[in-house]
């Protein structure tokens, strides 16, 4: 997420928002956003309802064996259609911003054709 923050302006220049979703509370997210300097929204899905709906729940993987989100990244276009999905097979390996940016650019190019 820090790498996405670093290249945040490139997403803004393309008219694309970034939002991060976890089970963390609003209070934890406020502190985390301040500490890390995140300028995009950190959304609190404390009950994991949205995380379940996206089928990205990782049961019992939290610090107190609670259910949390697995790492996953999506690019959703202006019509609400998913254009890019990244489901890692290794918790330590996350999407890089350049992957998302090239998916955004490919979507834009596809629309023009």
């Amino acid at each position, binding site marked *: *997420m*820090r*790498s*996405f923050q670093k290249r945040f302006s490139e*997403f803004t220049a393309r*008219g*694309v*928002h*970034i*939002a*991060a*979703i*976890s*089970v963390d509370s*609003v209070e*934890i*997210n*406020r502190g*985390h*956003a301040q500490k890390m300097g*995140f300028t995009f*929204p*950190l*959304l*609190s899905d404390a009950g994991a309802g*949205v995380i379940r709906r*996206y*089928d*990205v729940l*990782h*049961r019992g*993987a*939290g610090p107190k064996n609670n259910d*949390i*989100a*697995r*790492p*996953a*990244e*999506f*690019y*959703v276009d*202006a*019509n*609400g*259609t*998913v*254009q*890019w*999905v990244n*489901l*890692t*097979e*290794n*918790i*330590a*390996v996350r999407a890089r911003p350049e992957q*998302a940016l090239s998916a*955004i650019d490919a979507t*834009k190019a596809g629309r023009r054709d």
Partner: protein
Amino acid sequence: MKRKWNWPIWVGFVVAMGGLFSYEFFAQFPITRDFPWANLLLFGIGAALLLVGLFRAFGRPQLYRGKVFGSSFAAVSLFLFAFFAYEIFYVLRQVPLSAQAPRVGEKAPEFSLPDQNGKQVALTDLLSPNGAVLIFYRGHW
């Protein structure tokens, strides 16, 4: 005759410990996080030094110390490495399949959730003008 200090055992042990405990540091950077080569390198250097120390201790015991503590340090280092390898190459790969996750071409499920300031943000708010990148993450602890 007083036997010599067998420094490779000590240095090797410290370096091997560093291989484990530096994980949090190296995990900050994608290049050392995607594959933990920096940690594996430290473990490798530690193992090489420990081996040198053990060869000295067992090969020329009249000259070098460290048969007992050298073996103990090597065993502890091996255990730490086994733990690290188990975490990195097994535990981190236990990710759910997410077979029902929205696929390319499907509609992303609508949602509305509070942001860090308590303000409700809906997916539809994020989509204009050119869509949104959604990052699901494990959380902060």
